[in-house]
């Protein structure tokens, strides 16, 4: 068991390659404690792959190697499938992008929220029901006892995402990985859900790895930012420093957000040649 201050994740020279040998994630190293860290980057930069490798759920055709990969105190490189099971859901949890596809359409909300509890804790039926009710209430869903008998298609996207969060958090994991949790939601809902994730993570003193491409959100809700580009971590900085980023790639990402101030003007585009030159320079 990791103590209060030990890091939840230690990754050293983590490398993921496809079966044909192409490098998808190239020697990235990072540690993650009980803090809110964002992983940002354009699509295809390896953010989701990195996150999945932390859950031990990479597709079997991909090859993973690393100097060290410690996940909540266990050596993730040596874990068997049977040893992974208690970690997933129990110690680590993940919220996925679109609740429409990630909730089983044939099962009720109550059943799905209760399942991690049945797996990871030994509680009586009544206790489980009570905990599910509390959890649904905690993620801000109205009338939890009625909601438990509903099916996923009867919920809106925002409610679905709250249910996903309830499923992820119900077994009291230590680390939450959120893979673009708000990209299927509309703008007003995004802030609500992210604020909720942040509040829950803070209350439970958990670690959060937020994968996102919305820098504005990240700046508001996270403490640290890691910027990925083509399988490498290019830049690390405190989230509060994003407006004053020094790395050219981070700067472009930050300044290409459309806003009222830039209305009517062309937005800056990433100068890839300059970026490559910068990478070689380092």
């Amino acid at each position, binding site marked *: 068991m990791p103590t209060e201050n030990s890091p939840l994740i230690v990754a050293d020279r983590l490398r993921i390659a496809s079966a044909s040998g192409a490098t998808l994630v190239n020697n990235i190293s990072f540690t993650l404690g009980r803090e809110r860290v964002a992983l940002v980057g354009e699509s295809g930069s390896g953010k989701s792959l990195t996150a999945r490798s932390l*859950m031990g759920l990479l597709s079997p055709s991909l090859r993973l190697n690393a100097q060290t990969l410690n996940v909540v105190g266990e050596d993730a490189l040596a874990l068997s499938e049977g040893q992974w099971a208690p970690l*997933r859901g129990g110690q680590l*949890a*993940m919220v*996925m992008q679109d609740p429409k596809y990630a909730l*089983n359409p044939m099962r009720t909300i109550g059943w799905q929220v209760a*399942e991690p509890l049945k797996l990871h804790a030994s509680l009586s039926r009544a206790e489980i029901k009570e905990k599910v009710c509390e959890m649904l209430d905690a993620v801000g869903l109205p009338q939890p006892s009625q909601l438990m008998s509903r099916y996923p*298609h009867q919920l809106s996207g925002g409610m679905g995402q709250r249910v996903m969060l309830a499923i*992820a958090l119900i077994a009291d994991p230590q680390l939450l990985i959120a893979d673009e949790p708000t990209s299927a939601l509309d703008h007003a809902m995004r802030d609500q859900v992210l604020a909720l994730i942040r509040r829950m993570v803070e209350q439970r003193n958990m670690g959060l790895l937020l994968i996102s491409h919305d820098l504005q959100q990240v700046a508001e809700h996270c403490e640290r930012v890691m910027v990925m580009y083509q399988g490498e971590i290019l830049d690390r900085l405190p989230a509060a420093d994003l407006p004053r980023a020094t790395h050219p790639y981070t700067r472009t990402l930050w300044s290409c957000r459309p806003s009222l101030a830039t209305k009517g003007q062309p937005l800056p585009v990433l100068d890839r040649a300059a970026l490559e030159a910068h990478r070689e320079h380092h």
Partner: protein
Amino acid sequence: MTQNLTELESVPPRGRQRPRVTSLAIGGTLVAVLVLAALLAPLLAPFDPNAQLMTARLLPPSSAHWLGTDGFGRDLLSRVIYGARPTLLLVALILVLTIPVGMLIGICAGYLGGWTERVLMRITDIFLSLPNLVIALALVAMLGPGLMNGALALALTSWPPFARQARAETLALRRSDYLAAARMQGINGLRLMFGHILPLCMPGAVVRAALSLGGIILSAAGLGFLGMGVQPPTAEWGSMVAEGSKVIFDQWWVAAAPGGAILFASLAFNLTGDGLRDRLDTRHAN
């Protein structure tokens, strides 16, 4: 599939609609009639189905005997009504035997993959290539005729389509987000297969079962016709047709009554199957 369902469900109801006559409604009604006839046979049948009356042999349909009488003077209407019992029993037995076996094999093959899948699917292919009535005849000849053995024989060749369908659906589901999400909660193995995949494959299996029931009824009647099903004097449609075929040119009603009943039952299940498919399988919707 999921998305279609969600979109369909989110369409607001357009007020009260006139109830539409669908094939599900018609088929369901016919199946209900059939089941009621089987259950309430003693109340509905005007005569004892096995009471022989030699003075009333081969009477044409009349007000006393609505469908006429057979070569032993038994009332055909009563025998047709009682004949629904072995047929439905056989169908139920076959379903109970085939669906679990087919689903188990299909889901295991689809989920586990690799060598398990190859071996299981080749076994399925072998059974799929067996001609069903011929194998059923061979088996009944070995085990002896009777309802239970007939069901066993037909079940032996009826499960492969269920296995193949369950495997195909499992393969499609294996990459889906909700199974990935379930695995992220630490669910795997049997719990994933039967807690999550099985309910998702169930609608497909129900539709397939309803569609194949028409064929199963015909096969069951075929066994009866060849004398390999339920043994006389129990009323059974297939053996009644066989009896009637001896006198088919002079007393056509003796074969026509049970023949009509077979047609009716087969049609009822086919319509129900079609309707269920339209209803449950969103890929065919609109």
